[in-house]
């Protein structure tokens, strides 16, 4: 699924949202949102009063009519916000669904016999079935490769056009339904029944069909419901006070006051904010398996980051040749290059490149040299080349030392010193030897990704601790950690060490986030609070994660945390704004309600609103329009920059707290002028 950048108000989405917002007026749906349900009841009540007035033939119904209309608008606007948020996901789900078009599968009756294929519909496949996928075939369902190697186009899921290799065994054995085999063949054991596949789950998640309220959302709804009850009490008891004071208030005005006071702004936008948060994850090509994971991402205290690929560029690179005594640097570079010509590892390539850029040594045509190559092996731990009687080797210092002494030579102390110096700096020394003579050392170094240090500094300011995980020895790990600016590192990490680290952090009350792709990562992923599984990873890893990164980019963990924080900030900002709004609304409505009984209350009409009716109407209209005005903010999330909590809080309090108190004063006054000008009240 390619990330489609949609404009916020995409016309087809808006059209669908308008329809949905009316459909959502169903009380069975509304009751799930207590705040808006109260508004719905208020709208019905006001409408009934209107009907009664009309039936009794009263002429002055314009005011009640307008109040009723705007109350209905308030409900519909809130529904519209939710429908808009869902609409964006639904549009994405439609795209996904298209790739699930009727697929045919070649089911094998005998798993070992590729000739036993039988064509069936993909929908008939069950877990445990074995299918054959040949070039051009769509993989019919999620599964595990049990035989074969093939390149697979996964762009339907990931949006990444470069094909990936899938093979049996190891960490690249998982295939996803809906992807296409490009070359060779695979025998796949299906691991999910139809309707339960990754694609199905993704469609469900993207659509928000199975969205469950998150813990914080539930707590917030309790708070909002509580406030609604408080204001309901304040308004209901106002009538006896009014009667005591000698001027009962009409039902539409009481309803208007109630609707203005209860937190409709956040009540109306709350679910839209949650859906939009998951939607933003999707735009970053991360699928959240639950809203809870997005919320937890904002809470993360400790990030576990794999060194390779996240903090450093994939591999070590040669940065210097350090010749031994009596050896010229170009001679060392030459030998090193010769030894690496057949070495296709990134490290090997970097040696060839360094020799070329540093000493002008052109890459020689290896086949022309009549050379024989000694590949790297785990036993010898060295590699090299033999030609013209020359025996050139490169490898770990102890391996080369053994090689040299075997030839009757010995390693000079200068080279040993260089080896130790490089290791101390955290680099990897490779010694080059020719025959019985050690020539010098190649300095291989981890290259820290550009800008990563600044990201970690930002995280630290936000109070998030970063821990680098690496299989390197502690010396190397410490050097890279210092260069990248992480807070801590775990060297020579085995899966169980990682698990222990997570448990230790959690026991200290901290929430831990990590990424992983291998099967041996699965237990740690399951233990972590926020676990981002790489889409290229194994099925086990993906099932253990609560977020799946379709781009398989481990650096994205940081963005995931930021999206989580943005979601929470948006929720808090609009809650604060909504509650702060009440101050102005009181000053609009209370004097207006009792002006007839106590003309002295005009003193509280600080906005100098034109009349009682225009004041009440302005407040109700403002209350409805502010929901619409804030939909873009709810969908996009509030803007924020990484900073300490105190700084973020101060900024947001000014914006949404103080702003929330002041803006409605201006807004209501403006509406009052407009309403008076149009003679609406």
């Amino acid at each position, binding site marked *: 699924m390619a990330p489609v950048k949609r404009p916020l108000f995409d016309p087809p989405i808006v059209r669908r949202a308008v329809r949905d917002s009316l459909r959502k007026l169903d009380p069975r749906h509304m009751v799930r949102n207590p705040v808006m349900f109260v508004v719905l009841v208020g709208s019905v009540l006001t409408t009934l009063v209107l009907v009664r007035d009309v039936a009794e033939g009263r002429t002055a119904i314009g005011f009640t009519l307008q109040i009723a209309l705007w109350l209905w608008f308030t409900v519909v606007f809130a529904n519209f916000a939710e429908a808009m948020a869902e609409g964006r996901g639904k549009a994405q789900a439609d795209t996904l669904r298209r790739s699930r078009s009727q697929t045919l599968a070649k089911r094998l009756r005998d798993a070992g016999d590729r000739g036993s294929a039988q064509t069936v519909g993909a929908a008939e496949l069950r877990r445990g079935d074995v299918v054959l996928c040949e070039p051009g075939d769509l993989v019919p369902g999620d599964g595990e490769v049990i035989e074969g190697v093939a390149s697979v186009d996964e762009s339907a899921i990931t949006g990444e056009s470069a094909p990936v290799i899938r093979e049996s065994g190891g960490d690249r054995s998982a295939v996803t339904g809906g992807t296409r085999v490009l070359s060779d063949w695979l025998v796949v054991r299906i691991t999910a029944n139809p309707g339960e596949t990754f694609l199905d789950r993704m469609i469900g998640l993207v659509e928000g069909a199975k969205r469950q309220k998150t813990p914080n959302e539930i707590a917030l709804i309790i708070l909002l419901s509580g406030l609604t009850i408080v204001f309901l009490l304040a308004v209901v008891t106002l009538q006896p006070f009014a009667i*005591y004071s000698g001027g009962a208030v009409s039902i539409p005005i009481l309803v208007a006051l109630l609707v203005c006071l209860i937190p409709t702004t956040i009540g109306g936008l709350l679910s839209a904010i949650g859906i939009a948060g998951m939607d933003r994850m999707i735009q970053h090509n991360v699928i959240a398996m639950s809203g809870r994971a997005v919320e937890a991402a904002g*809470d993360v205290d400790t990030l576990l980051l794999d060194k390779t690929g996240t903090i450093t560029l994939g591999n070590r690179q040669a940065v210097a040749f350090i010749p031994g005594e009596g050896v010229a640097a170009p001679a060392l570079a030459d030998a090193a290059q010769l030894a690496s010509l057949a070495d296709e590892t990134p490290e090997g390539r970097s040696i060839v490149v360094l020799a070329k850029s540093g000493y002008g040594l052109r890459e020689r045509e290896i086949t022309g040299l009549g050379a024989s190559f000694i590949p790297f092996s785990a036993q010898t731990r060295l590699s090299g080349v033999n030609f013209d009687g020359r025996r050139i080797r490169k490898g770990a210092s102890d391996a080369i030392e053994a090689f040299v002494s075997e030839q009757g030579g010995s390693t000079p102390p200068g080279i040993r010193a260089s080896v130790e110096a490089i290791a101390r700096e955290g680099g990897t020394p490779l010694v080059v030897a020719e025959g019985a003579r050690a020539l010098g050392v190649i300095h291989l170094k981890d290259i820290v990704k550009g800008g990563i240090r600044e990201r970690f500094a930002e995280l630290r300011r936000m109070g998030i601790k970063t821990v680098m995980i690496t299989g390197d020895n502690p010396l190397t790990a410490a050097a890279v950690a210092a260069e990248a600016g992480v807070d801590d590192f775990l060297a020579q990490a085995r899966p169980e060490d990682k698990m222990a680290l997570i448990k230790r952090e959690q026991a200290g009350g901290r929430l831990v986030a990590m990424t992983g792709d291998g099967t041996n990562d699965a237990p740690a992923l399951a233990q972590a609070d926020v676990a981002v599984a790489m889409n290229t990873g194994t099925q086990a890893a993906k099932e253990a994660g609560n977020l799946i990164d379709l781009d398989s980019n481990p650096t994205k963990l940081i963005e995931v945390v930021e999206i989580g924080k943005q979601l929470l900030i948006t929720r808090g900002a609009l809650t604060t704004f909504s509650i702060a709004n009440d101050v102005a609304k009181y000053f609009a409505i209370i004097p207006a309600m009792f002006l007839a009984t106590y003309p002295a209350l005009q003193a509280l009409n600080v906005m100098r609103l034109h009349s009682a009716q225009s004041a009440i109407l302005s407040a109700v209209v403002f209350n409805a329009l502010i929901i619409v005005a804030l939909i873009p903010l709810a969908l996009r999330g509030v803007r924020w920059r990484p900073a300490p909590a105190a700084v973020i809080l101060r900024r947001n309090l000014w914006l949404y707290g103080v702003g929330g108190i002041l803006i409605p004063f201006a807004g209501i006054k403006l509406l009052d002028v407009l309403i008076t000008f149009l003679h609406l009240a």
Partner: protein
Amino acid sequence: MTPNGWLQILVFWAAVLLVTKPMGLYILRVYDGSLRWLGPVERAIYRWCGVDPAEDQHWTRYAAGLLVFSAASMLATYVALRLQAHLPLNPFHRVAVTDRQAFETAASFTTNTNWQSYSGETVMSYLSQMMQLAFHNFTSAASGMAAAMALARGLSRRSAGRIGNVWTDLVRGTLYLFLPFSFVLALLFVQQGVIQNFHPYVTATTLEGAKQVLAMGPVASQEAIKQLGTNGGGFFNANAAHPFENPTPWTNLLSMLAIFLVPAGLTYTFGRMVKNQKHGWALWAAMFVLFAAGVTTAYWAEARGNPIHAARGVNVVASAGNPGGNMEGKEVRFGIANSALYATVTTDASCGAVNAMHDSFTPLGGLVPLVNIQLGELIFGGVGSGLYGMLVMAVLTVFIAGLMVGRTPEYLGKKIQSREVRMAMLYVLIFPAVILLFTAVSAVLPAGLKGLGNGGPHGLSEILYAFTSVTGNNGSAFAGLTGTTYYYNTMLGLGTLFGRFAMMVPALALAGFLSERRIVPASAGTFPVTSPLFVALLIGVILIVGALTFFPALSLGPVVEHLLMGAGRLF
């Protein structure tokens, strides 16, 4: 307003600041068990009551203990008041207190409210005053403290719902805190001229030659705990305006200080317990700002006096020989500054003792005590109840605004989720619900309207004040409302019970829930709870949650009354 008036107020402010830390440290030692000088007495009580002092109780058991204890002592008081004619120390042969008044009084004293619909000197025997009422003055204070300590423990440790031992908390609070301090304070009061005797009433001849009966009694001992325990029930009907209860400016200052002593110290104790002393001071600061704002408003309103009087040629400007302002209902020996200060202190702290009649304050001056109580009795607040009220507000503040830092809300490292919010909202909801519903019913029922001393908005203020006072467990009276009817005795008695126990139980539940949560260590990403910004935010939430609920009712009461006074109308 005069420099002298402000000086007296500033002296009091400084005194509150000075006592906070030493008092806080003392309270800490009372409740952590390190004070032992009454060990034999303490152990004897536990043995006699069959209590295991080492038991760490689950919040449900803790709450049940408090409720059972309160119910039993309330019943005992009810019976004693009904039977007072047959009990000793009744030199004036007082008859049984009526059933409705005995219920109301028992409820009121059990809940630390001490709303009095009777005149102590004409209705109560000495035994009733001393054994029953003074007993509650101690135990109701100790039970408020117990609940506060329980909530503080819930926030400061992780203990699977266990929040302490209700019996040791009650016993230690009474033995080490309230008894010794009351003893010392009573002696100071006696030295200043507060009476303490069992004499028969004295008949005196006034300067005008009239005969006047002067009531006597063991006043000083009751006066001390009345202030220290923020109880507020006076020995005499005139309460602390009576010269035998509060004879001099010194007793007045001591009384006010005694009211704030424990609640102010508790903020320090709390800071110690949660290992965040700055947060303790932040709570203190929030309380102090609200208190200072109240005093300033009340003093300003009273010193300004009644513009209608001024218009009629009365000199309301203060001078050497004229206190100026509004002296109606105030004692000449206290004057305007000390009356306004006392009114603010007593209503901030849920005490309810009065040295002037709040009913006679100007509308805005009278609004201050009313609003103080309506904010939830947490501006220093009642002993214990002030702190747990404030902590509930802090939980809500952190929950509402905490999201804005990009983390799910946590307070002092404890995550605030739906269970905690539910209890906090319940706490916040019950208070206005009882006040507004009871007031609304009384404002339209003939039985409710019958007791009104005044009409118009002032009448509404009187009803509103009465229910606010009992539900807030304050007990001060606006006066003007005749509370000795079946209707009001019953409704007000019920108000005290709801306002105490329907709020204390959610607070204890909150304590239990919080104690189950692990403590997340603070980092740069944690919502700051020690900064001035937090103090401002906390005040904002208290004002918005508290004031907005009551704003409609207030605008039809004191607010409109004030505006009408400006227009030349009085009620």
